[in-house]
């Protein structure tokens, strides 16, 4: 087999911004991808149709396989932060399993080797920790052109096609949004989901099912094997009709690209990522397939609104906001946070602040369902906008091992790891399996902007809310910001900071645990710092447990009518909460504070009390603008702090 890995552009679609949406959605057939001819690697001529074919994976020889296994033995045994927990939770020993695989690795076929290896890694049930072999092309996703969602009770769910991509991709005009799925390759649909869940990551059965449901129609090829079948036969019913219909739909391979605003490999932010890379690729693919205008606008860097009634934003990949009307509660704000995968958390938060100012302050629904995570700083710093409370971020521990000690002792890692070193060294005598947990988002950064939204807030999550999404949900609960609503039992339960082989290789350079380069295109991601919650759940890990909330079951109306019932449910939760508000306006010589529902106003200048507590009623208060760095107002209702605004005067 020819080696096509050299000099081949990773994202071919990137090369041509003029590609039509349909071309991008069509991609190439999986059968061509796996069995067809590999492309030449030469650039398409100007005006020619872009070549979506992905080069064929090359075979690994025995030595290369050993190299991969030895690396994984070293890093899973040495830095994988969930190792003690996974051993306890699943009664497994991945290091021993890898040792056993090593003994006969050279005799395995290519397929057997990859299957054995991915089974060991996915057996950890950790979406952070993934192996990607040479066949797993970065950014490529196998996709079926429709979205399956479920509603109803957990033990008797109904599976519905909630969205369909371009009609050209399905040769059955009746297969549209709303059809009910009955079978998958002749297997009852619910059974097919359960069977697939066995292959999926996820600590809890509901989390595995959620991922299985998603991966029935989308598979990130970078993080796992391709579908076994080239096409699927789907049995379905049109609602209110008894006739069972069947359609055959081929798998396609598309390349959704990363968002313009996503974190850049090698950037400072890239060391502070908590995300499921597979879910992120799938999320992007959903955007390509079902919100093509957003996907295209993102590629061209044009801010757009998601649709009518949505507010335009330049962070269209990560955010969407609109006003939702609710009969009993009046207008509410709805902020969808699709992802925390951003490179610049300051810009991201500034954009959220801007959007919040355009939303009613009567109450806000934060919707993080399906958020696969991203930059930890973005998630944890965002919390402060919604509460007058001081935010305490989650803390992170390293596995206490010779390897982590060597990494933390390396002079090149002093800035990154120096704070962890004393406890790693102390662990030799204390026997602690982990280092001291320390925040990755400095507490001062979590409180450097302060509250920006006045009204009460409810946050919605589901088992696909993962990693930085988990961290946001944990912070939301632990810092007592508002009510957490969960579709399913809890969030996806990914509690760690994730590094790549490149990050680890760089960090271990010069130590006695130096890692070699892996064969071309082979890589992995690894959970290296384990997240620990704060507040009432102080000390609890997030991994495998997730963050539970008030349970909610999705309805058919939710799936087909923009979460109608879910929004009504959230509105009902917001209804009983007393409303207070505070708006601060800075003028050249004065500061005006307009409040509602507050009885006391405290003013602090440069962090010190500025005047006696004012007794206030609804309306505006004015004071001379002091010559100072900062001014802070604290508003109380019945003695409780309900509003806080901190502004820079410089």
């Amino acid at each position, binding site marked *: 087999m020819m080696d096509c890995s050299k000099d081949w552009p990773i994202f071919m679609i990137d090369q041509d911004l003029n590609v039509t949406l349909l071309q991008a959605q069509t991609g190439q057939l999986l059968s061509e991808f796996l069995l067809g001819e590999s492309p030449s690697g030469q650039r398409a001529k100007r005006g020619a149709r872009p070549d979506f074919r992905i080069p064929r994976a090359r075979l690994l020889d025995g030595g290369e396989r050993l190299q991969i296994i030895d690396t994984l033995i070293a890093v899973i045994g040495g830095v994988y932060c969930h190792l003690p927990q996974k051993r306890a939770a699943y009664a497994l020993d991945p290091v021993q399993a890898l040792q056993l695989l090593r003994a006969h690795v050279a005799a395995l076929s290519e397929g057997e080797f990859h299957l054995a290896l991915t089974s060991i890694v996915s057996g950890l049930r950790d979406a952070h920790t993934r192996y990607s072999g040479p066949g797993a092309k970065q950014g490529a996703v196998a996709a079926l052109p429709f979205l399956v969602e479920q509603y109803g009770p957990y033990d008797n769910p109904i599976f519905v096609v909630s969205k369909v991509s371009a009609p050209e991709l399905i040769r059955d005009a009746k297969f549209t949004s709303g059809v009910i799925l009955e079978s998958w390759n002749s297997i009852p649909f619910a059974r097919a989901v359960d069977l697939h869940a066995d292959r999926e990551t996820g600590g809890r059965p509901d989390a595995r099912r959620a991922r299985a449901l998603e991966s029935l129609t989308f598979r990130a090829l970078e993080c796992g094997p391709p579908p076994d079948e080239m096409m699927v036969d789907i049995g379905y019913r049109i609602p209110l009709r008894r006739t069972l219909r069947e359609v055959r739909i081929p798998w396609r391979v598309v390349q959704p690209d990363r968002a313009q605003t996503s974190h*850049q*490999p*090698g*950037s*400072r932010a*890239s*060391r*502070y990522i908590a995300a499921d890379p597979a879910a992120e690729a799938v999320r992007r693919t959903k955007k390509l397939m079902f919100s093509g205008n957003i996907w295209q606008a993102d590629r061209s860097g044009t801010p757009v609104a998601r649709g009518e009634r949505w507010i335009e934003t330049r962070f269209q990949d990560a955010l969407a906001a609109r006003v939702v009307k609710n009969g009993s509660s009046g207008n509410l704000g709805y902020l969808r946070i699709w992802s925390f995968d951003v490179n610049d958390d*300051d810009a991201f938060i500034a954009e959220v602040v801007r959007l919040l100012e355009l939303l009613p302050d009567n109450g806000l629904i934060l919707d993080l369902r399906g958020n696969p995570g991203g930059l930890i*700083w973005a998630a944890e710093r965002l919390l402060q906008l919604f509460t007058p409370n001081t935010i305490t971020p989650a803390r992170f521990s390293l596995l206490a091992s010779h390897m982590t000690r060597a990494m933390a002792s*390396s*002079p*090149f890692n*002093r*800035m*990154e790891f*120096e*704070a962890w070193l004393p406890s790693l*060294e102390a662990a030799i005598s204390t026997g602690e399996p982990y280092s001291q947990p*320390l*925040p*990755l*988002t*400095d507490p*001062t*950064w979590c409180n*450097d902007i302060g509250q920006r939204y006045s009204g009460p807030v409810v946050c919605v999550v589901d088992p696909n809310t993962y990693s930085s999404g988990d961290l946001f949900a944990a912070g939301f609960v632990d810092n007592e910001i508002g009510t957490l609503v969960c579709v399913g039992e809890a969030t996806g339960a990914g509690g760690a900071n994730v590094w790549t082989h*490149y990050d680890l*290789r*760089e960090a271990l*350079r*010069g130590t006695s645990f130096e890692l070699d*380069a892996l064969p071309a295109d082979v890589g992995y991601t690894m959970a290296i710092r384990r997240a620990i919650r704060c507040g009432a759940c102080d000390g609890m890990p997030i991994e495998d447990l997730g963050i539970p909330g008030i349970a909610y079951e999705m309805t058919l109306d939710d799936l087909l009518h923009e979460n109608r019932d879910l929004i009504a449910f959230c509105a009902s939760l917001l209804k009983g909460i007393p409303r207070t508000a505070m708006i601060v306006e800075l003028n050249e010589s004065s500061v005006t504070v307009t409040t509602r529902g507050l009885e006391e106003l405290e003013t602090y200048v440069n962090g010190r009390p500025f005047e006696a507590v004012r007794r206030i009623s609804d309306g505006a208060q004015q004071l001379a603008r002091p010559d100072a760095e900062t001014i802070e107002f604290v508003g109380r209702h019945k003695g409780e702090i309900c509003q806080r605004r901190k502004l820079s005067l410089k």
Partner: protein
Amino acid sequence: MSLIIAGRIIPISGDQKVAPSETASFQGRVWIGNDGRIAAVTKGTASIAGSQMNLADFDNAPVVDAGTDLVVPGFIDLHSHLAYATLPLWVEPNRTVPFQHHDIWPTRPTYPESVTWPAYAFIEAAPAELLAYAEIRALIGGTTSIQGSPPSNRPLDGWLVRNIEDETLGGEIGRHKVLASTLTLKPEQLGERAISMRQGATFIYHCAEGSPGSIVQREYRAAHTAGCLQRRLVAIHTNAIDSASYGTWGEPGAIVWSPFSNLWLYGATTDVPAAVARKINLCVGSDWGPSGTRNVLGELKVASLVSEVKGWGLSAFDLVKMITANPGDVLAQAWSRQAGRLEPGALGDVAVIAANAKAGSRPDPFKTILRATEADVQLVVVDGRPQYGTERLMRQAGVTQTSMIAINGETRRLALTRFEGNGEPWSYKEILARLEEVRDDPKEAIESARRLAFAAIRSGEPPPLRLALDMPTGRVPVGGLPKDLSKISVPPIQPLAHDKEFFASIPGRGFHDGLLEGLADFYD
């Protein structure tokens, strides 16, 4: 390339074939062979015929005629921190009492923003330029070997001056012959160093730095307990210990004395007479930008000032030995090659210092060296390679690929090549320009360097040069850096030589009771 340097030779040698005493000087020649070693030191214009040397080596050797200028061993700075070389003197604002010890000042609020972050910006974004800057700064003060190289991901030997921790003498000796630690080591680490020293390594250790009697004196006791008080230990500072403690150093090694830094931070310095009485080998080191002098030639003057004020009676010869023969003997143990003395077999590291014309026909050469400033440094040769000097001497030495460098108004030539450039010349102007770029936009410079490093590791290319900080980082946020990298404010890059601004920054700052103000008098 072999080289002959003629002038008034100050060999500071104990070799009777070279000179009758260490204080002797004479008109003569230093012959440096192709191997970078001194082949001979001869008097007058005598040839080396009859010696065991290969005369053919010198058939076409350029002869540098320094006239009556002093030809001295290249200076050795046994205490520096190159990563912090660009920084100005630092004080914690409004502090009125000296620091107790070295664990206190890094905890001060202004330390990270004044010291750690600016230094980090340079090591991350312009490591080669930073090294070049620091080494040129040493070189213009006559330094040929310097300690305190930042930890690096590749060896730093064989470039401009000798980086003591990295030196291999062109592969003659193995790496790790000289170990060093700025940070205080744990008992087991000290135990490991004790073993290494017994196996032939030299260990340079910051030890008991602080006010006399302060708690850090226990670091010296810990070194003793661990078995580190050996002949091959080079203890930096030890100003916190009482003089009697030197008695526990059974087979004395060396102490590096950095009086400027000691007085600046603690108002008290090492008890030199007590150490000398114990036959500890005393050396002088310049320390770092935030609390030190710019080169060891400057530090020598501070040592002289302290000696004078305290009545220690150190002669110019005693002091000059502290930057030549004394540290040279330390290095000779580690490298099995003599440094810091001009004698056959020794390293061909030489400085030429202008004779003091005002001091009469036969002035004490050691006083001349003591009083010399950067303007008096006429030529610096490392390993037989002329690296820096006046246009005339560099031309005589046959060095053509040089660039101009101005030092306090004096013009010199610099034979610097790019760190990774196949001998391509590199000027100080270019180096400074890059450092200024980093200073202008540290955030972009740091991020860009990170991206390049990542791209290299991803493509399988060798990683770019990487350096690390060796001093305490201070109280920093998680990850060591401010949230917004654009908040890193890099102070103006300091001139290479001691200048009026440097002296103007001394009065009223630090805890030296005015003593350090006397330094300016040497530069009038």
